[in-house]
């Protein structure tokens, strides 16, 4: 896979996906290096980092810069490493071994939305001035986009910029809110309307009139800085305009794609961290003379948590692996490198949103269960679960709420179908009469039945999508009653499809292969139910006023042919036995 949305149209017996099993030696050593830093440097001070602690946060941030963690996406010429996107995901995921979400927010904001606009759109002078210090951690960046009246609706922004009479400076006026790294930042990429045209600017500490408001009192991630910026005739030199006048929306939207898959990486790491913390506790905590880990209801929770983490891991790495694959023949010194990169990242908009949604919801699921496993202690601040519970919540809100991301998943798929960027129309026709196609898999293949279930699911998605297009046409992109369940079908298909493909690429003699097969079985069970139920809802929706039985009978008749009789509890038992043997998440 190296085209965005490819998972929708490539059957399970075809198509390539990237996964951690394909890490290079460098990747594996990066994993260990970052884990060591998280474990030895961050974890011992993780409680201190839960309080707003500028000096400590900046100290660790600087060390991360020296180790290269901040400069992965930066060009080598300007103090960076110009490494692949898999490495950015590795670093973000494994920094969670330090167990502190606030630091991760500071880090992710800086390495994503706060610096990428300068890397992608900055002039040579701007890059030379800002990037080396942002790469080595001497400076911290921020990204000020949201306004009191403009969140995801970027275009309703009110902040203005006008040239002064001398033509030397833009004067910015207005307010930006919820700015991560706000009071600690040395630079800020911000946006304002120049004669009504949305435009990006780089602020630094020399800009007079950049007033930083007090810290927000947040529900969680309390150790990260979040402030309001007031621009009071804020003087920004003309040479600090980023890109062209009117290019602001494109800049903002393009970097947000990256912010999404990066958030996927941190939350995927967080989901595993939460699982491991809860597991340690379940073995320590005894009730009725035995560790609570021995009770089946706790075991079931852990089995599901393993599956959620593995799915998030799969989605995050197929996304960045696919971007890297698409970029493999483009050299970093190519003058169009960043233009091509942005196009490829934009092409992976569905996957970027999938990473964000799947991983943040996996983390939410695992942390909620972690609190439950901690029992009463989960509600007490002296134990780790409660802070995780509060910290987690923001992940389903920032970088585009999960609702906005579901809209993107649904509407981008529609767009790709209409523009025929991927052969969805062709597949709709092909699958109309052939719901469960012949597969190039031996019938004794351990996941043969799951392969058929996934292909049936794909056909069902095409069937439903066709009915939606017939009913709504292009207006489907505005029909949220339809788009949300459609996005849920796409999410379920993505998880099942890429999970299967990942598993199939693991060599049969690999120690993790048979365990992964069981994880895929359970994953398919869960997501097939989600997908089927969303399909029924959508068919009812499109049938409004007519007889839905025509559709439902067809769907059910094809489903019956599957003869799919999964054994959920047996899979859960196998997974939890393996987890207990390893005493930690074991599929890395």
């Amino acid at each position: 896979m190296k085209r965005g949305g490819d998972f929708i149209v490539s059957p399970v017996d075809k198509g390539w996906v990237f996964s951690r099993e394909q890490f290079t030696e460098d990747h594996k050593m990066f994993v260990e290096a970052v884990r060591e830093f998280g474990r030895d440097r961050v974890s011992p001070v993780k409680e201190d980092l839960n309080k707003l602690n500028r000096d400590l946060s900046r100290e660790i941030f600087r060390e991360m810069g020296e180790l290269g963690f901040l400069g992965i996406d930066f060009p080598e010429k300007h103090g960076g490493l110009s490494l692949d996107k898999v490495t950015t995901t590795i670093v973000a995921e494994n920094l969670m071994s330090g167990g502190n979400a606030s630091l991760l927010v500071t880090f992710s904001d800086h390495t994503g939305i706060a610096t990428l606009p300068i890397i992608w759109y900055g002039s040579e002078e701007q890059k030379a001035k800002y990037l080396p210090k942002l790469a080595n951690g001497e400076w911290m960046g921020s990204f000020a986009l949201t306004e009191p009246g403009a969140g995801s609706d970027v275009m309703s922004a009110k902040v203005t910029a006008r040239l002064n009479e001398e033509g030397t400076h833009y004067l910015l006026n207005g307010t930006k809110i919820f700015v991560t790294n706000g009071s600690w930042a040395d630079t800020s990429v911000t946006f304002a309307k120049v004669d009504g045209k949305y435009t990006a600017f780089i602020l630094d500490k020399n800009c007079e009139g950049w007033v930083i408001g007090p810290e927000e009192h947040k529900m969680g991630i309390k150790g990260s800085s979040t402030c309001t910026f007031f621009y009071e005739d804020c003087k920004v030199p003309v040479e600090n305009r980023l890109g062209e006048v009117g290019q602001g929306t494109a800049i903002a939207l393009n970097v947000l794609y990256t912010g999404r898959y990066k958030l996927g990486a941190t939350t995927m790491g967080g989901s595993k961290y939460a699982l491991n913390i809860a597991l340690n506790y379940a073995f320590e905590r005894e009730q009725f003379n035995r560790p609570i880990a021995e009770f089946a209801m706790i075991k079931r929770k852990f089995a599901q948590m393993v599956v959620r983490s593995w799915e998030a891991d799969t989605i995050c790495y197929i996304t960045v692996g696919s971007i890297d694959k698409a970029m493999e023949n483009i050299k970093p010194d190519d003058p169009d490198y960043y233009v091509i990169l942005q196009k490829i990242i934009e092409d992976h908009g569905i996957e970027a949103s999938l990473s964000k949604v799947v991983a943040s919801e996996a983390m939410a699921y695992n942390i909620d269960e972690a609190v439950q496993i901690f029992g009463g202690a989960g509600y007490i601040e002296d134990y780790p679960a409660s802070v995780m519970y509060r910290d987690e919540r923001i992940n389903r809100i920032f970088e585009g709420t999960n609702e906005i991301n579901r809209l993107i998943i649904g509407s981008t798929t529609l767009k790709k179908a209409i523009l025929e960027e991927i052969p969805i129309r062709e597949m709709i026709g092909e699958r109309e009469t052939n719901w469960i196609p012949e597969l190039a898999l031996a019938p004794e293949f351990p996941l043969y039945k799951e392969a058929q279930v996934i292909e049936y699911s794909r056909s069902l998605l095409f069937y439903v999508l066709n009915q939606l297009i017939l009913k709504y046409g292009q207006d489907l992109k505005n029909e949220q009653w339809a788009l949300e369940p459609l996005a849920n079908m796409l999410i379920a298909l993505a998880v099942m499809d890429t999970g299967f493909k990942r598993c199939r690429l693991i060599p049969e003699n690999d120690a993790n292969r048979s365990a992964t097969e069981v994880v895929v079985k359970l994953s398919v069970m869960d997501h097939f139910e989600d997908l089927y139920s969303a399909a029924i809802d959508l068919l009812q929706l499109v049938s409004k006023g007519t007889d839905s039985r025509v559709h439902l009978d067809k769907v059910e008749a094809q489903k019956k042919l599957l003869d799919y009789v999964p054994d959920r509890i047996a899979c859960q038992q196998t997974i939890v036995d393996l987890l207990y043997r390893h005493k930690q998440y074991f599929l890395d």
Partner: protein
Amino acid sequence: MKSCVLIKQVPDGDSPVVIADDQVSLKGEGITWTTNETDGYALEEALLLKEAHGGEVVVCTIGKDSALQVVKDALAKGADRGIFITDPKFDNLDSFGKAAIFAQVLKDENFDLIFSGLQSDNSSNAQTGLILAEFLGTSHATMVIGTEWIDESRIKVNRELEAGWFRWTELDFPASLTIQSGINKPRYASLRGIMLMKKKPIATVTAEDLAMDEIPALSHIKKLYVPRKTKETVFISGSPEEIVTQLTDKLENEIKVL
């Protein structure tokens, strides 16, 4: 200045300890391998001296295939080249045998300083660095908690003694130093360091390369076993006199402390 750091790969402290069927080694399954903790401090000390006074840092280990990783990790942190000694004949050696092999491999390198960790986390013998000094005829110091460069031929080291006492000593080069944890703050591998690692040479040495007919050994592991917990509480009841009689009987005849 030319330094060598001896590094050992050991199981991570959290790894499950399962004894293999041969009863003299551990099962590899489920073990996470890592660099011996004090060897990490030894490496850092060598790197700091190199950064201050120039020279070369070579890392050397004896181990199975997986042990190559500790050499690579050290190269990623800044060592200049590696020597990886590996052969099935070198499995389960004692400190004497290892030191003999190290001496054979390192004797022609003419190192000014040989660093090693004070002891390994798995076998805790604290001998290899010392025996090696004997084989190579160098001066040596153990439990080193500080170093001070004097000149091209001498170094001053602070040794940790018992009961909170320390002692500064001057040593002539060549010298073998065994390093105590806490002497410095070991660095982390940077991403760039990892990328540069691949360009650094690692020489592999096998039994065939060494003109050693037999590896000497002064001790042999006969059997490994997990210590059994034999905690048992016995309640003595009766009148005070009866309790005293029973207790003294146990102390005299069972525990034999009276």
